């Protein structure tokens, strides 16, 4: 089947992820949505890699995974410490600084 469909899927996933970031309150969930966006990107990479018949895209996908993993480490560390301080993982609670 036409690989372009995978692109549509990637776009869809990306949008879902972005929307999630915008609407979900829980930091963890927000973060997962970001991961979803990254995966959407990976899908796009692999698809294009297939399309162009070279491996750059696939290689990129692997790198993305690694980076995502690192991001998770850092991100969770921060979010958890925030949670422990505030006893809530809500992004909206953290709004001391404004204006």
């Amino acid at each position, binding site marked *: 089947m036409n690989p372009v469909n995978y692109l549509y899927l990637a776009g869809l996933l990306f949008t879902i992820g972005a929307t999630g970031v*915008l609407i979900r309150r829980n930091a963890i969930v927000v973060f997962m949505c970001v991961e979803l966006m990254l995966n959407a990107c990976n899908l796009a990479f692999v698809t294009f890699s297939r399309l162009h018949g070279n491996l750059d895209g696939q290689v990129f996908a692997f790198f993305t995974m690694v980076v995502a993993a690192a991001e998770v480490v850092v991100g969770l560390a921060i979010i958890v410490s925030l949670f422990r301080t505030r006893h809530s993982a809500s992004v*909206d609670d953290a*709004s001391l600084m404004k204006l």
Partner: protein
Amino acid sequence: MEKLIALLIAAPLLGAAVLLVGGRRLDRVGHWIGTLLSTASFVFGLLLFADLLGRNAEHRTLTQHLWSWIPVEGFQADVTLRLDQLSMTFVLLITGVGSLIHLYSVGYMEHDERRRRFFGYLNLFLAAMLLLVLADNYLLLYVGWEGVGLASYLLIGFWQHKPSAATAAKKAFLVNRVGDMGLSIAIMLMFTTFGSFAFGPVFGHVGDASQGKLTAIGLMLLLAACGKSAQVPLQSWLGDAMEGPTPVSALIHAATMVTAGVYLIVRSAAVFNAAPDAQLAVTVVGAVTLLFGAIVGCAKDDIKKALAGSTMSQIGYMVLAAGLGPIGYVFAIMHLVTHGFFKAGLFLGAGSVMHGMNDEVDMRKYGGLRKYMPVTFVTFGLGYLAIIGFPGLSGFFSKDKIIEAAFAKGGTEGWILGGAALLGAAITAFYMTRVMLMTFFGEERWKNRPTRSPGAPSAEPAAEHRGEHAEPHPHESPKVMTIPMIVLAVGSVLGGGFFSIGDRFLHWLEPVTGHSEGHSPVSAGEVTAATMVCLVIGVAIAWAQYGRKPVPAVAPRGSLLTRAARRDLLQDDFNHVVLVRGGEHLTRSLVYLDHSLVDGVVNGTAAGFGGLSGRLRRFQNGFARSYAVSMFGGAALLVAATLLMRAV
């Protein structure tokens, strides 16, 4: 010999500098220094006069180039002095009368602790006045012109702690400034027309200049003259100027400074001769003023103000004469000189009277003074006879000639002007007689009453030093004051005759001003006769009113005209309402506008940005997700814009 010209000015200038900078240590000798230096100047004057007489008429113009003053591309102003018959006449008048009045002041200001400064100012005035008449170009003349203005400002306001004096001084300066404006515009016009404003080039090229330009110059000069010589419509300051010490009124506001306008017009004869319209204007101003001043003079009870009115009117005669062109120039100057004598004499007399009367100026509180101060009476009387033009005395000759010349103008103008002059003569006779009678004759209204009744205008505060408010003890003034009066009296008696016999004055001045005998529709004899008639009528009416019946000590309400005349024919009120009030409103509203509008715009912009900022920062609401929204939106915009760019 030319070198002496500068000394004429230098001497009094030096005096002014020494006296004003010298400080208190000169207090004791100051007045003598001043008198000495002005006399020195007079002596130089005499020497130069002798020198001029030694030359023949054509070579009586000496010039002394001192230094190049303002050398700018295409604009040359030099400090060059020019001594010819005209300026010589003035030099003698100024320094002569000036020195006499210095002498007089020594006695008059004796009790004033700021006498040194007074003499400093007097010397400053002499210097400026001499510069005025000796200048060889209009710009330098302008310097003297404003210099005398300054001196008169300082001297009118000499008793600065009196608000009335300070105000009068300011008023005088401001009104004069309006005139000065005219002078400076005239100079600018000359520069654009002739490329120069030195007498020589200007008069030389009058022929090449356009009629309009010349008329404009003439009118502007006339405006200047009006300011300085207190001619309608700029006459309002002269009456108030009487706030100054009497010697000042005598020297500056009677004998010399106020005649500067006449000098200016006569000096600019060449221009005026070429601009008949301007000349007409001059004559009109003169005629109007001579009547205006005379009428005002009739209504005043303040002796000095009455004399001021008369000064105004006499100068009106001179201006009228000057406006008549070559027929009149000489007589204008001649009347100017004789007037210098008798008016100065009259003022000094008035001063002497006040001196003896605790500085009372209200004539209704005088009366019968002739036996208490005989010298004053005699000198004053002679001056009186001179001014009303009593046959044989100086006024008679000079004024008569002017009236004659006025008729000689010919046509209806001639009749109108001549008529005005005649009428003026009558009124003059009236008000001067009135002054005479109220002061020296009649019952002694000052008896059994402390002078300085609350309402009466308080003049010279020398009284405060003597601290007298009780009934005055009229007494003759000291020699130092009477001698000058006597000298001036002699001058006012003989001057006219001396000048007129064999037309001495005419021949003396003719080379500068030129002269033409107008053929008058009425003969000289008829004019004289008419004048005499007017004179008699005037005196008679005055006698009827103030001689026969006693003078009321408090001024009666009087007719509408009288009341108007007391208020200087309401011209001052007009100024007050229109200029002063109007100006105040204008400035106040401008101040408001400057703050609210011009400044408001600026502050408004600042405030506007502040408000905008306050509104914008609300977007920074602290919620990470709304930040994400803005990023998302931004990204969308970015993408859309990029695509759009490609689309278009």
